[in-house]
C-alpha cells in the first residue's frame, strides 16, 4: 500500500523568502507524484506532477519539485513567495494511471502562510 507523509503541518514565511514544503512517500511499486493547492473556500487544483523523465518538474507560477527515488521524497520549493501563495498544499501519490484511474493517496496537507 502507498502512503504519504507531509512533514510540516504549518509553514509561516515572509514574502519574497524561499520556501520548501516536504513530502515523503512509501510504496513498494513505482508511483506517480502530484502536488495540489487549495486556496481558501476553493477546490483542489493541480500544481505540478511527476510521471516519468526529468526528475525536476515545474509549475507555471514558479514552484518546482524534485523526485528523489532513493530518498522517496518529492519536496516542493519556490525561491521567492508571494502573499497570493498563501494556501494549503497537498502532496499525493498514485500507483498507476492505467488501473483505477489514478486513485490518489493524499498527505495531511501543509498550510503555507506568507506574511508581508
Amino acid at each position, binding site marked *: 500500500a502507498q502512503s504519504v507523509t507531509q512533514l510540516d503541518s504549518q509553514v509561516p514565511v515572509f514574502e519574497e523568502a524561499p520556501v520548501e514544503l516536504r513530502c515523503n512517500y512509501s510504496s513498494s511499486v513505482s508511483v506517480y507524484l502530484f502536488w495540489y493547492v487549495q486556496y481558501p*473556500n476553493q*477546490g483542489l487544483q493541480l500544481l505540478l*506532477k511527476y510521471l516519468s523523465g526529468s526528475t525536476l518538474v515545474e509549475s507555471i507560477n514558479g514552484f518546482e519539485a524534485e523526485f528523489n527515488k532513493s530518498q522517496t521524497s518529492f519536496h516542493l520549493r519556490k525561491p521567492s513567495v508571494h502573499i497570493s501563495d498563501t494556501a494549503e498544499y497537498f502532496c*499525493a501519490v498514485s500507483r498507476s494511471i492505467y*488501473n483505477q*484511474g489514478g*486513485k*490518489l493517496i*493524499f498527505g495531511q*496537507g501543509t498550510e503555507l502562510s506568507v506574511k508581508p
Partner: protein
Amino acid sequence: EAGVAQSPRYKIIEKRQSVAFWCNPISGHATLYWYQQILGQGPKLLIQFQNNGVVDDSQLPKDRFSAERLKGVDSTLKIQPAKLEDSAVYLCASSRWTSGSRFGYEQYFGPGTRLTVT
C-alpha cells in the same frame, strides 16, 4: 469549459438525520470521484465511478453511505443516518480517464460541500 459543480456548498444537520450531495462533472468526463476531507487531513477516496459503474468503493462505509451515477453523468452521495464523525468537506472530482488508457488521468475538483453534523 465549466468546472465541476457541487451543491449544496454548506449543510448543517443533526446526527441520525439524512443528507444528500450532488455533483455535476465536467462535460465528457467518464470518471467521477467522491472524496471525504476531514479537518486537518488530506482527502480520502470514498468511491470512484467510470461512466455509471463502480471502479473502487473499498473505503465507502456502506452501512450508511451510498452513491449513484445512474446515467453516467451527475452523481449523488447520500449519508443515512449521519454521525458526528461524518463532519467533513465532501469533494467531487472528475477526469477523462477510461480503463486501459494512459491519458486523461488528471482530476479536476469541485469546490466541495462542507457538512457539519451536530
